[in-house]
Every structure is written in C-alpha cells, then in structure tokens.
C-alpha cells in the first residue's frame, strides 16, 4: 500500500485532474463535430444522398446507444428500427428513477463515446501499440494531469504515425481506413437536413445534456461520490487504475477527434469538385487513386525509405494540384441556379433573345 500525503492537492486535486482532462477533450470533440456538421450542411443541397448516408450512420449509432442503455438497465428491447430519417427503440418494460436516467444518459452521451470505443477496439488489433498507462509518481493535481496527458500523447503519436505510414496496398489497412471514415461520419449525434436545422447546433446538444443533468442533482452527487470512492481506493491500492480509467475515456475522445479530422479532407474534396464542370469533376478522384498506385509502383523499382508516407504525400499533393487547376480552368457555370430560370419576355410578350434583329 502506498503512503499518501494528507493535503488538499493529493486528496482532491489529483482526483479532479483526469476528470478535467476528459471534459476538455470532450469539449474539443464537440467543436470538431460542430465543424463537420457545418461542412455537411454546406454540401447538403448538392449531395443529398451523401448527407442521407451520414445521417443514417449517425442515427444507427445513436439507436445502438439507446438500445445499449435499455439493455444495461434491463428494460429489454421491444422494437428496434433505424431508417435514414429516424431511429426508434422501444423498451419492453418502462423503467423509472435511476434506471430511466441511466438509459437516457446512454442516449445522450453514448454517441460521443461508444462509436469511438469501437474504433479504439479495432485500433488495438490493427495498430497494437500506444496503449500505455504511466503511473504518477507523486499524488498531486499536476502529476495526475501529466500522467493523463502522457497516456494520451503516447496513443496519439502511435495513431498518427500509423496514419502517416498507412499502406494502401495492404487490404487490412485499407479496410481499417474505411472503418475510420465510416465511424468518422457517424460520430455526430444529429440529423443533417433543412427541416430540423435548429436541432443540429452544438448548443442544442449541450442544452439537452444540461437539462438531463440538472433534472436529477442527487444522481450527480451520487456519481461524484462513487468516483471519489474509486479514486481513494485506487490511490491506496494502485493509482494507475484511476488515471488509466479516465485515460481510456480520453482515448475515445481523441480517437473521435482524429477520425473527424480524417473526414475533413474528404468533405473538402467533395466540396471542391462541386466547383468543377460535370464530367471533369471525376478527375480529382481518379488522380487520388492513380497517383498513389504510380508512386507505389515506382518505389518498388526504385526503393527508398518511407515509401508509403511519400506515396501518400504525392497522392495528396497531386490531387490538390489537379483540383486547383481544374477549378481554375474548368470551373462550372457560376450563373447556374438551383431552380430553372424563366424565359424573360419583352413588354410585348415576345421572348427576349440575344440575336439582333435584321431591321
């Protein structure tokens, strides 16, 4: 059993540090989600099918979280329905009190963490490194926070280095990359569409969570008490457990942020190609694949170090360059309107034409 100095920093500060860290990363995650929402909204008019697809994934995860909530609280699942526009889970038994509150917590918090948890699980198998827990030496706020951040930075380093060195000739890596994109578009517990525009705001999500927490302050006190008991137990037995638990939650947020970041270039590419004329807009997508294949094949015959990451760099740069050139020289008609323009007519009712009359 470790000896613990009896002061405020050790007994309260050390307990608060990882919680604050998780909260900070979660808020960061919310901001990244909000950016993605805005980007998707700007694409909505031209890419309705794509937005419906992202909605579907988001709703699917949200519904899964709700179902998990009912399963954990032993309410049972009477019906489970997911469509592009809505998801619905009906419990077998309507629970009240703390069980109902827990089930609702799953619905509100689950979509931020549970899909990211799945990605984290997959990355355990694919990346396999970076899941390290550092034990704090001293029991202070700063030490605890440093330990938490160190855990996260080790994981982030490994994750980013995997992404930089990803081998797109490896089917497992390609599969994992698509899983990341799939989850990246789904870590967004909101609907993108014109009809419910007011509900896709970050404030709306936060308001819902605030209402949920404020409604039952006693439960919050109970949760804080349980966490503190957990802290005290781990403090005297093994301090790594407490920081480690919050580090896992932090990894989830970090994973969510990284997969969200990964979706931004995809959305940017889609948005950029909208500026290009109809048949030319496919060229950047072809460039994306062809440039990588050419680079990789070239490096098979002329081997260099870091060939995978250089190939990735070539792919990104060539796609960006081609897109910019096409936007400059093959830009779509700017005067094109969403609705058909009516024929303008002269005062006498005849159609106005650009041809000059002979007289």
């Amino acid at each position, binding site marked *: 059993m470790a000896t613990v100095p009896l002061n405020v920093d050790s007994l309260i500060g050390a307990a608060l540090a990882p919680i604050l860290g998780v909260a900070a990363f979660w808020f960061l995650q919310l901001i990244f989600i909000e950016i993605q929402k805005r980007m998707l909204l700007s694409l909505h008019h031209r890419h309705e*099918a794509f937005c419906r697809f992202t909605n579907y994934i988001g709703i699917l995860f949200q519904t899964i979280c709700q179902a998990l909530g009912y399963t954990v609280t032993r309410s049972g699942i009477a019906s489970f329905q997911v469509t592009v526009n809505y998801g619905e889970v009906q419990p077998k038994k309507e629970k009240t009190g703390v069980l109902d509150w827990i089930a609702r917590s799953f619905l509100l918090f689950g979509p931020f963490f549970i899909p990211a948890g799945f990605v984290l699980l997959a990355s355990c198998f694919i990346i396999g490194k970076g899941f390290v827990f550092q034990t704090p030496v001293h029991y202070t706020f700063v030490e605890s926070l440093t330990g938490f951040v160190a855990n996260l930075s080790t994981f982030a380093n490994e994750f980013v280095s995997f992404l930089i060195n990803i081998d797109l*000739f*490896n089917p497992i890596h390609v599969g994992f990359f698509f899983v990341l994109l799939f989850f990246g578009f789904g870590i967004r517990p909101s609907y993108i569409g014109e009809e419910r525009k007011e509900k896709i705001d970050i404030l709306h999500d936060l308001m819902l969570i605030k209402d949920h927490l404020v409604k039952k302050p006693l439960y919050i006190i109970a949760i804080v008490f349980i966490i503190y008991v957990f802290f005290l137990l781990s403090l005297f037995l093994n301090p790594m457990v407490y920081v480690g638990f919050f580090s896992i939650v932090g990894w989830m947020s970090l994973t969510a942020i990284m997969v969200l970041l990964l979706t931004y270039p995809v959305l940017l590419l889609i948005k950029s190609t909208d500026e290009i004329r109809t048949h030319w807009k496919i060229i950047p997508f072809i460039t994306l694949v062809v440039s990588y294949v050419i680079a990789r094949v070239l490096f098979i015959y002329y081997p260099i170090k870091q060939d995978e990451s250089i190939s990735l760099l070539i792919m990104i740069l060539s796609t960006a360059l081609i897109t910019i050139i096409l936007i400059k020289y093959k830009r779509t008609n700017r005067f094109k309107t969403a609705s058909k323009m009516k024929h303008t007519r002269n005062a006498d009712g005849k159609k106005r034409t650009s041809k000059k009359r002979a007289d």
Partner: protein
Amino acid sequence: MVKKELLKNEQIERVLSPHPLSFMKLQALCIFLIIWGIVVWWLTNSSEYASMFSGNMWYRLILWGLVLLFIGVVASLVAIQWLIFFLYLGVFAGGLSLIFSQHWEKDIALFIPLYSIAVSIVGFLIVELYRRSHKYIITDFRVIFKGGIFTKRERTIRYDKIADIDAKQGILGQIFGFGTIIPVSQSGFGLGSDKTMAAGGIEVGAKKVGLFGFAGGGKELQTPIARSYYELHGVYPYKDVKQLVENLVQTHVPTQYQKEQVEFEKQQVDIQKQMRDLLHKQISEKPRKKAVKQTTEEEPDEEEREEEKTSTEKNPVPEDAYQPEQVDIQQQMKELLKKQKTARVIQPDEDTEDEIEEEDESEQERKEST
C-alpha cells in the same frame, strides 16, 4: 416505340427503369470477387504469411478456390439461390481451365487478381445490361413491365385488378431514394413463398441392413415476391412513383360510395325503362289519330319522351274517358313515380332534391287541375 403499344385514349404517366444501384445484390458478387482476388494476392505475396505459400504455387489456387466456393455455398443458403454457388464454381473452373490451357502455372500469383478483376468487369457489364433491359411504363390505364436480355418478358396489370401494393426500400434505397413496388393482382400474382427446411440423416449399420433416419421440418411464409421484370424494381424517385401508383389504383377501384351510386343509377334506369314501356302501351291504346302520328314519327328521343310524359302528367285526361287498361297503366305509373321519388329521397343530393321539389309542385298543380 412506346406510343405504338398504347391503347386508344391511353396516356403515359411515367416511363421508368431501375436505379443503377438497385441490383446491388448481383453487383456485390462481383465486388467480392475483386476484393478476394486482391486479398489472395496480398496474402500470398506481401503479407507476413507469404512464406507459407512460397513452397507450392498450387496453395494459392486452392486457397482462392476453397474460400470462393465456401462463400458461394453460404451466400446461396442465405439467399436461397443456388445460382450464386454455381456462378462462383464457374468462375473457379474457368480460372483453372485458363491456367492449364495457357500454361500460366508459374504466374498464378498475378493471374488470380487479374482474372478476378476481368471476370468482375464482365459481371458488372452483364448486370448493367440486365438493368437496362427493364422498362416500366405507367399509363393512366395500366402498368406495363418489360425485361429480359434474351427472352423478353412482359406483364401488364390494370389498376382495377390490383388487389394490394407491396413496397419496400432497403438502406441503399433510403439513401439514394429508390425502392421496389410490387403490385399484387387479385389472382395472387406477385405473391411468393419463402421456404425453410431443416433436415438430418444418420445411417446405422454398414453392410446389408442399414438404418437411415431422417428428421425434417418445414415452414412456409407467403410474401410479396416477384422477378424484377414483374415488379417496379428499384424505381426512382420511390416516394413519387408510389404515390402515383396508389392514386391511380384509387381512381380505378370503385369505393363504397361509388358502388351505392352505381346501384342507385341502375334502379333509376330500371324505373325509367318500365315507365317508357308503360307510355308506349298507353300511346298504343289511345285514339287512332294520335297513334298514327306517333308511328309516322321516328323513334323519339329521351328528351321528347320526357316532355311527352310531363305534358300527359300536366294535362291528364279524365279517367272515365279511357278504357280500364288505361287506368291500370296510370296507376302503375303512379307507383313507379312514387318508387322513383323514394329512391331519390335516400340519395339527398342537391340536384335530386331540387328535382323532387319540382315534381312535387307539378303533382300539386296536376291535382289542382283535376
């Protein structure tokens, strides 16, 4: 081309064809072929397990073929369609025969992915050709379904013969806005059944006398199912097309109110026919002068008959001036008029109410005059 096939006064509402992604089940077979071909290439050349396959070049072929056939069996069982298994068997057999005939044994590693991609491209083209062979014509009378690459199939269903409409939209359909609509006819065309069977056998004894036990169970579910050329398969935009078909069916199927209307009109026509017969009878028994005049004229129109009827009603001849048969006819006519009136009272339309009032007034006038 389409217009030639239309009936008289028939108008086209919509000409549709399946969405490019509506045959994803078939396209998925090709996608799997490509993915598996590439995975085998990677597994046997670049992965950490490559050394396992370096000993014998046939190992790659065995791995490729076994997994292909296994997936074929599983997919066939799930989809209850043995065509998938035979398709993959054909692909495998084709690959084998190409290797032996062209002596490409040394290049199996490269052959598998290239062959998979080539076969898949052909597969995609066939699926696309099949998709394009479909055409659905929605007119204001009926729905015409056409399809088939070599054997052209066609089905026509009139809206009044549609008993039920089954509509379904998968995940891809929801995302891309297409769906399938199956019009089930009154004869049950468009309904199929899903059968599941569980069976097992055991043989006890080896040489002469063997005991064979067999246990099985079956379940049959009737479900709307049809070939893609007998249904509106993967039509876009799904919601609009569904609405259109439902509206057209609704307009062609008589509702309860319409049935009552038809019944009422039939009654009216019967009464009028009887009245006409009675009038004819009455006229034929009138003094000769009028009868002669009547025969020289052409067959009177209904309007003229009505006028004549009202004139006879307005200026009735005293009963004692006619024969007793005439009195009978008049009584029968009165009864018919009453019947007609009561029938009209049941249908309280504004027009009919006005007519009833007019008739009441005319009857009162007639009574006063008598």
